[in-house]
């Protein structure tokens, strides 16, 4: 925990705070059907053309049922679109490697994964997906699933800000405007900056480089039919081979990585994701990627404040998020810097911390920061392997996801997730001021409480239910890469990631099996849509309420007291449910590591 690391942390937080208001101001324009931006000359004609093609009247607003209905229908069409391309990729163009159709369970899992903004990848892209599948079937959702999340958050904020109305905006308009005015322009600039740092953007075939020093490796000897040969004593026969070439991947990476980060998708272009030197070439590209993960989510808190005419509330929500963020960063950073005592015992330098699965250019601090950021948001990109983190270092990303990714969170999803906790905090503590709880002038009654708790129940039931099942079933146990408590963490992490629509993994888990693909797919669907529906119902109900004017007796939703209250609610209502099982995973592992226990 060097002084320079503290400086980096400070610069990150200050920069994030600095872009929050400009982003919020821009969001005000984007999320208003009649809003104006300086991109109008270029994009307005495109926007109008799109509406004409869709047959949508941009001024017609929808109530919560219609809005949610449109969103669900659009997601369904997108899901089928992707599923069809994956299943039919052998018949479609742009498949030079001649990949066959993606298996039904993997196609389901992948289509769900990208539709839900999760980007969980059970497959290895290089050996499964054709160029068309990558570029169209998958990349499409990087934009629209992000836009969908932002649209839902905007609808909820409108529900809070408006009163005595049923209308929450028009989903189609929000979708199109967010994609055109927000995501595309930023990505365009961001992608070029990433290329300037060394990220690739081309359409070349993979390059073959001749190694400077050819490498001798020992591999299993195979017969003509490709089967391994066993010696008479039953051991596998090995043979020496010399590797002279290195395959260097190519492709249109920067354009995909920009939206992968900005839209908190996180699906890697290559397997190693943001740890790969192409996908995250420099500490500067790393810094910008981390900033872009939080950029829109952070701006949305400002949008919340402006829309509800209570900027202090927006900033208070932001501050609560930042407090949780800093707590996570400090714990993860401390744990990784402290390193693994088992390896120290063997002679690894204590001062270097835990470098397994980390890149030298990022070091301990930027790996811990990235891990926290990516799981605070529902991004899921990784610049270090979380599976190889220390017990407590790995506890942080896991915990972040289980809280529901409400710390800035996935674009849109983070805000609407956090607002569920705001509603609960206001309800529980609101009674303590001696009035029916009010949130920004709206009475929080049984309907809102019901919907908020329903959203939490979905999260909790799906996560714990599937994880418990997997932890005692043959299919669940078979996927593990580690034994003991760490194996449980792997299973738990997978379902936390799926339900939270994060997409990162304790990547040792081999999840490309029909069982995992199906259960994780269902978990992702539930975690996304079964959360959104009750939240939209809540938005609809809030929008219809009368506005109670503020008075000295009104519950305060800003300031230190509120922030502390919100944090308490998040930790007590959101986290307590997972502490028992977390104890069996990372917490026990922490104590076992200290004792040098191996599995």
């Amino acid at each position, binding site marked *: 925990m060097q002084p320079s690391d503290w400086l980096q942390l400070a610069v990150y937080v200050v920069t994030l705070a600095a872009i929050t208001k400009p982003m919020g101001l821009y969001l005000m324009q984007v999320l208003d059907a009649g809003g104006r931006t300086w991109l109008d000359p270029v994009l307005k004609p495109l926007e109008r053309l799109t509406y004409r093609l869709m047959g949508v009247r941009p001024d017609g607003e929808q109530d919560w049922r219609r809005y949610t209905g449109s969103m669900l229908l659009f997601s369904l069409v997108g899901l089928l679109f992707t599923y069809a391309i994956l299943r039919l990729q052998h018949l479609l163009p742009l498949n030079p490697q001649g990949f066959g159709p993606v298996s039904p369970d993997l196609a389901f899992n992948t289509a769900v994964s990208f539709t839900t903004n999760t980007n969980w990848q059970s497959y290895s892209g290089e050996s499964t997906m054709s160029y068309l599948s990558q570029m169209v079937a998958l990349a499409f959702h990087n934009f629209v699933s992000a836009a969908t999340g932002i649209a839902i958050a905007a609808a909820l904020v409108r529900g809070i800000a408006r009163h005595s109305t049923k209308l929450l905006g028009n989903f189609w308009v929000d979708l199109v405007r967010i994609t055109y005015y927000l995501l595309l322009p930023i990505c365009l600039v961001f992608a070029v900056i990433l290329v300037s740092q060394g990220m690739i953007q081309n359409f070349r075939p993979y390059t073959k480089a001749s190694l400077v020093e050819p490498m001798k490796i020992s591999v299993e000897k195979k017969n003509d039919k490709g089967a391994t040969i066993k010696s008479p004593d039953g051991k596998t026969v090995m043979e020496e081979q010399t590797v002279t070439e290195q395959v260097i991947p190519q492709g249109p990476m920067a354009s995909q990585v920009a939206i992968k980060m900005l839209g908190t998708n996180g699906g890697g272009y290559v397997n190693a994701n943001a740890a790969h030197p192409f996908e995250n070439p420099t500490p500067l590209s790393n810094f910008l990627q981390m900033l872009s993960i939080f950029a829109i989510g952070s701006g949305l808190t400002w949008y919340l404040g402006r829309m509800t005419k209570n900027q202090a509330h927006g900033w208070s929500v932001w501050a609560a998020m930042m407090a949780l963020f800093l707590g996570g960063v400090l714990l993860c950073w401390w744990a990784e810097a402290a390193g693994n005592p088992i390896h120290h015992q063997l002679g690894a330098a204590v001062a270097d911390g835990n470098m397994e699965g980390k890149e030298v250019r990022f070091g301990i601090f930027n790996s811990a920061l990235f891990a926290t950021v990516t799981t605070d948001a529902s991004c899921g990109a990784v610049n270090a392997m979380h599976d190889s983190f220390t017990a407590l270092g790995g506890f942080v990303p896991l915990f972040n996801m289980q809280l529901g990714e409400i710390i800035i969170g996935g674009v849109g999803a983070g805000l609407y997730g956090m607002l569920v906790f705001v509603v609960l905090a206001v309800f*529980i*503590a*609101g*009674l*303590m*001021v*001696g*009035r*029916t709880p009010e949130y920004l002038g709206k009475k*929080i*009654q*049984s309907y*809102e*409480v*019901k919907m908020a*708790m*329903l959203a939490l*129940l979905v999260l*909790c*039931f799906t996560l*714990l*239910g599937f*994880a*418990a*099942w997997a*932890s*005692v079933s043959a299919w669940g*146990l078979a996927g593990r890469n580690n034994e003991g408590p760490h194996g*449980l963490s792997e299973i738990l992490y997978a379902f936390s990631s799926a339900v939270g629509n994060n997409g990162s993994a304790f990547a040792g888990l081999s999840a490309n099996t029909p069982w995992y693909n199906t259960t994780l797919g269902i978990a992702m669907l539930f975690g996304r849509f079964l959360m959104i529906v009750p939240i939209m119902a809540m938005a609809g109900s809030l929008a219809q309420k*009368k*506005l*109670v*004017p503020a*008075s*000295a*007796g*009104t*519950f*305060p939703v800003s*300031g230190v*007291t509120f922030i*502390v*209250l919100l944090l*308490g609610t998040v930790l*007590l*209502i959101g986290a*307590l*449910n997972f*502490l*028992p*099982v977390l*104890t*069996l995973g990372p*917490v*026990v592992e922490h*104590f*076992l590591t*200290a*004792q040098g*226990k191996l599995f």
Partner: protein
Amino acid sequence: MTHKPPSLFDWNIVGPAIVDSFRKLDPRLMIKNPVMFVTQIGALLTTVAIFTATAERGFITHLAIWLWFTVLFANFAEAVAEGRGKAQAQALRRTRVKTTAHRIGSGGRTEDVNANDLRKGDIVVVRAGEVVPADGDVIEGAATVDESAITGESAPVIRESGGDRSAVTGGTRVLSDEIRVRVTINPGEGFLDRMISLVEGAKRQKTPNEIALTILLSALTLIFLLVCVTLKPFGIYSNAAFSVPVLIALLVCLIPTTIGGLLSAIGIAGMDRLLQHNVLAMSGRAVEAAGDVDVLLLDKTGTITLGNRQATEFIPAPGVSEKELADAAQLASLADETPEGRSVVVLAKKFGIRERQIHELPLAQFVKFTAQTRMSGVNVNGTQYRKGAADAIRGFVKTPVPAAVEDSVQKVSRAGGTPLLVATRDRVLGLIHLKDIVKGGLRERFKRLRTMGIKTIMITGDNPLTATAIAAEAGVDDFLAEAKPEDKLALIRREQSGGRMIAMIGDGTNDAPALAQADVGVAMNTGTQAAKEAGNMVDLDSNPTKLIEVIEIGKQLLITRGSLTTFSIANDVAKYFAIIPAMLMGTFPAIAPLNVMALHSPTSAILSAVIFNALIIVALIPLALRGVKFNPIGAVAILQRNLLIYGAGGVVIPFVGIKLIDMLLTALNLV
């Protein structure tokens, strides 16, 4: 009569409550409270486990006993609250002695029937010395009625047909004369009956906030149920076989049993507190709504000011001494029996003028106030003393009214007072300043309301000038002057359309629409039946400022619920640290540092947490019944205070409590 709250440990209440705690174990009753129902099932399963378990029977038995205690304690809390309510209601019910009614049957003949057989619309005759058999309206005659049984007020009141004083309440006693009363309610539907069934819990329906809270608590219970169920397979993975009783112990500790067990007691106690203030509420919803009130409508007369204007000052004309004026004013008022007139006599005494009795002046000729002359006074020794409105006196006096006096008239009017001129035929002596007297202590109470965020609006028939002055003096936020009944209704509607909740108090029939429209409408017991039916509360004392207490009780009810919910949820942290390490110690001894309380053994840790969980319910019963203290210090300050006490306290207290219980268990060798 004030209904003193019974002591918390009154055996007349505690005894039956203990019996009731067992009676309430009926699952059909328990299922209404999901949190405690789950606890009961857990207790049942643990009891079964005593017999099926192969090891640790003693521990499981202990566990089962304490789980049953948890359920019983919660039932006990509810039973005690109900018992106290019943005791209050019983006191009221005693007024309901069996009475015989003289019903006027068909053909006009009276027949004697049991009061309980009276129906709405029946007409009964009540004679002097008899008890009014049911609530109703006087339709013929007038009588003095002793209402002390209901209100505790010993002075008899007049009840007469027509007008705003026609309502009589069942159980009150007619002292003189004979009245005919039309019964307005069926048996068992009277206000008192409704209130009794409310506090007894028979007809208790959950209030909106209670429903929302129950949803929250049920959902939390469901979540923790899942947490504990899934812990079984997770345990299998970890080679830690968690036994069912231990998982149940964890479950019961994590689900919000504290608030779950006390929730209905809090609600009943809220109703009970209202009753102690002699207010009958129609529903729990009304009490809760009182806590939400944003605007308070108060009639000026009788509420903000004493019923009538009073003389406060003598302003003599030039060349007249104050004493001379006082003397004349008193003479002119001797025959004036109105409160205003009496106040002049009283004020004059302060100038050393003794009150003369009428018989001392046998030759005096008293002139009564008439609508034509608008003056009253006396002719004594040939001098005509008069007092009256300025223009009336101007016509009476032969000389012009001095300019200085005219100035004073203007000044008094501007200040919201009423100037009465005192004169003889020859000259104007000066004027009396009649003023509305604002009741003492109101300014502070309105300030208190303001800090709670409640706006007060005064309703008055006075002109705006007078209203402004009185409003300023009383410290209300706003006023409605020259108000007609329909203006009142319009004002309520206007405020409600702005999202505000309105409370008002009223008595007359013309108040009924407004009482019905207001969110909290408190009718005075002396008011008409129509007013009582329209409102949702009745103040037995007919004290207009009671509304303020009602609001505070409503707020206190909500605060108590919120605080105990917060406390209950915050408790989970310590219980988690007690039970989880205990559950894992066998399989993973390395986890010992997590046992931050250094509890003696796994079994003592689990047992201590369960015992704490049970005892905290009992410990909080007094708080639930009394209510969390309410200070009107503004929402932010209240929140900070309660968050500190019940939030932070809720985290810390169980750490201490569980550790103490663990030490005690260890010392007693119970584990």
